[in-house]
Every structure is written in structure tokens, then in C-alpha cells.
């Protein structure tokens, strides 16, 4: 039997503080893929990721993760989530943080050492998280999400503020994880990260502009890079008639 898609979203609508944020999204994320969720700041990327991990109250629509409704108790040890701000304890050491999250997950005792190696923080294991640099803290947060080998990783801007070498290392790690069968959904507002993904979701103002492979997007828009492709798609969608402005062209 074929695996269900890692994520399946149908007609997802979300309002935050009375303001609509997502206006009926439909999308699919395949398993063993590295899917980039790209769009400008404030377009609803984080809200969509919160829906996928099941912490966002939604208005209507359906979000299924690994074949189960998002947020189902069955998913709690199968989905790793990294928020944009590092969500680890600043007043604990790196190992103490990872050991606690591993115990909560019921992961193996050797898991903290394994994930530390994966994010390249091996020599900082006894450092207090509060004394690490911003980029190192972000990697501790990522390491915590890698514990217990999740089937889906949801990462909110995991490479922001990292130097180019580290960014490249992390993207290589993401592809190794995908090759081992993990699906990854990674948000970014930096368009040049798009080329590193196997699949792209382009978002703007709470709507999905396109879902395609990087090459497919370039071919469809005739653009030379993803940024130009994004701009071409925005221009295209803005000239569509009847988008609530009374324009009946």
C-alpha cells in the first residue's frame, strides 16, 4: 500500500484576532520530500505551519498529517516542530535540554548525542543555552525536533541568521533526512533558498500562488530565478478579475 501524503490541506481558512489570515488553502506535501514554503513576511507561513502541527485554532477546512487529523495524539511523537524563535530552556545546558525532550518523547538515551552531532554542536554539549549565540540556539532547537526520528519535520525559518557554511551543512542534513524517509516542510522568506528544495509552495497574503518543483516554476513563468518567478506570479494574480475590489475588467 502506498503511504498517505505527509500533509494534505483542503479548504483551510484561519482568522487571527478577527482578521482572516488564510483564505482557503489547498496543498499536498509528499513523503520523503524537502518542501519549501516561501513567501514574504506576514503572508501566513507560520500560521499554516501551526495548523500542520495542530496548535492553531482553525475556522474551516481539513488538515491531515501522515493520514491522521492534524494535532491527533497519534502524531505527537511523529512530528517534529521548530518554531521561529528557539523554543528551548535558556537556563539549562544543551544536553539537559535534549535529555528532557528525549524523556518526554520516550526516545533512546543515546538520542541527544546523535542529534547534537547532526547539527554540529557536539563540543557545546555542556554549555548553558543562554550563553550560546543566536544561531547556535536555533540549532539546539532544531536538534530537539530531530529526537526520536520523526516522520515529518516542520521547520519555521530554521536557517535565518546562520552563516553560509552552516546553512549549506543544514540543507545537506535536510536532504539526508529526506533520503531516509522523513518529509520536511521548511518555511523561508529568502527566495534563494528555494533552489535547495525538491518542491515549492509559494504563498502571498494568505493564498497559495503556486505549488511546483523549482524547475517547473521557472519553466512555467519563463523566469531565470525563483524571485523573478514569484514576481511574475504576483503580477499574474493581481490582474485576475474580481478580487474583491469591485474591478470587473
Amino acid at each position: 500500500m502506498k503511504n498517505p501524503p505527509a500533509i494534505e490541506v483542503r479548504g483551510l481558512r484561519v482568522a487571527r484576532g478577527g482578521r482572516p489570515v488564510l483564505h482557503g488553502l489547498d496543498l499536498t506535501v509528499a513523503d520523503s520530500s524537502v518542501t519549501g514554503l516561501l513567501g514574504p513576511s506576514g503572508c501566513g507561513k507560520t500560521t499554516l505551519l501551526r495548523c500542520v502541527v495542530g496548535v492553531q485554532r482553525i475556522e474551516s477546512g481539513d488538515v491531515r498529517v501522515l493520514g491522521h487529523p492534524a494535532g491527533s495524539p497519534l502524531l505527537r511523537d511523529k512530528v517534529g516542530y521548530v518554531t521561529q524563535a528557539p523554543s528551548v530552556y535558556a537556563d539549562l545546558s544543551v544536553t539537559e535540554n535534549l535529555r528532557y525532550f528525549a524523556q518526554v518523547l520516550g526516545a533512546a538515551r543515546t538520542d541527544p548525542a546523535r542529534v547534537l552531532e547532526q547539527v554540529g554542536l557536539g563540543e557545546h554539549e555542556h554549555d548553558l543555552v543562554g550563553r550560546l549565540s543566536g544561531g547556535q540556539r536555533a540549532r539546539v532547537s532544531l536538534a530537539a525536533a530531530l529526537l526520536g526520528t520523526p516522520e515529518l519535520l516542520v521547520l519555521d525559518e530554521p536557517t535565518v541568521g546562520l552563516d553560509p557554511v552552516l546553512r549549506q551543512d543544514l540543507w545537506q542534513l535536510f536532504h539526508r533526512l529526506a533520503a531516509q524517509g522523513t518529509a520536511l516542510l521548511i518555511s523561508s522568506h529568502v527566495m534563494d533558498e528555494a533552489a535547495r528544495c525538491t518542491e515549492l509552495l509559494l504563498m502571498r497574503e494568505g493564498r497559495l500562488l503556486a505549488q511546483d518543483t523549482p524547475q517547473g516554476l521557472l519553466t512555467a513563468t519563463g523566469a531565470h530565478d525563483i524571485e523573478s518567478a514569484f514576481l511574475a506570479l504576483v503580477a499574474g494574480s493581481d490582474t485576475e478579475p474580481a478580487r474583491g475590489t469591485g474591478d470587473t475588467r
Partner: protein
Amino acid sequence: MNTRRTLATTRRVLLQLRHDPRTVALMLVVPCVLILLLKYVFDGQSQVFDHIGAPMLGIFPMIVMFLVTAVATLRERTSGTLERLLTMPLAKQDLLVGYALAFGLVALAQGLLAFGLTVGLLGLQVAGPTWALLAVAVADGLLGTALGLFVSAFAATEFQAVQFMPAFLLPQLLLCGLFTPRASMATWLHWISDALPLSYAVDATNKLTTQTGFGSAVAVDLLVVLGSALLALALGAATLRRRTA
């Protein structure tokens, strides 16, 4: 509820405290210093110290534990670690009971220290069994912890959390019978006082300092204090939501 996850949480909270020795020192030393001050403020009036020293043995730890717990859990909410934990296989009770156990241990240490000082060194006269006084002091610390966990749900910032101390605890302090006997209050004040858990804690210590033996009335007071702590914990669990707007 899951024992492994609950105890892992307790261990984690205690480790956080270990990295913050100044807070631990403040939690343990401040109630003792306040009791010592109280003793010398009423120097030469030993019956006054006997009257208010015993309730203070419970009240100071309650205030300290309330503040520490409210701020610690609020930090958990604002740092994003709560959101991470709620996407993991951790039941809400695992988290709250884990916190309550960790701070309960601190309350026990604090109670023992303050009790040793008050009864041992300062010679507080207790007619009833002294272990019962210690039990009330520790129950007060637990109550402070549970109330702190509960109010942290209603605070968005640490400023607000600290403001909940005068809003939540000082009315209880005024109405608990420490300043005026509860029986001589206006009826409506007496009703409010009846609904506040600290009144029972002070009632219990008053009975213990004046009457011999551990009567059923003291047991009821103690149960009310512990029951209020459990109720506050249950309400705290109800305010933890996996899905938020």
C-alpha cells in the same frame, strides 16, 4: 498521566533551579529573615509573636512560592517551550504535576528551615503537635505554588504576573484573621473570608498554637488548604490549551 514524563518534568524544573542559585537562596532565606524580623519587632511581647509567628510560618512561604511559580510558568509560556511541549506526547497533568512536585519539594525545604528557626531557635510556643504546624506550613507553600500556576494563565507578561500577588494574595492576607479575628468581621467580609483558602491555614495554626492535640477541626482546615491547591491545579490544567487562536 505518565510517571516517567511527570518525573522528567520535575527533574528538569529542579535542574533549572540548580542553575539559578540566587533564586534558590532567596526562596529559602527570605522567609527565615522575615520571621526573624518579626520576632525582634515584637521583642519583649512573646505572646504577640506566638500569635502571629505561627501563621507567618505558612504565609511567607506561600507568597514566595506564588511569585516564583507564576513567573516560572509564564516564562514557559512566553519562551515557546510550552507550545513545543504541547505538540509532544506530554499530558497537561504531566506538566502541572511535574511543576507542583518540583516546587513542592522546595516548599518542603523552605518549610523545614522556617519551622526549625521559629520553633527551635526563636522558641515559639505551640500547644499542639509541632509536626502538624510543619504540615500546615508545607501545605501553604503548595497552595502558593498551585495558585501561581493558575494565575500565570491570565498574565501575558512578567509585570502582570507579579501584580497578581497583591491582587490575589493580599486580600486573603487581610481577611484571613491575622489582623482582626474572623468572627468579629462584618458578615459579608466573613463570607468572603470563608471562601478564601488562607483563612483555613490561619485557623489551623491558631488552633495548633492554643489547643493541645491534633483535633479533627485542624484536619478539616488542612484538607481545605490541600483541596484548594488541587482545585487550583485542576483549573490550571483547564487553562492550558493545545490549540490557540
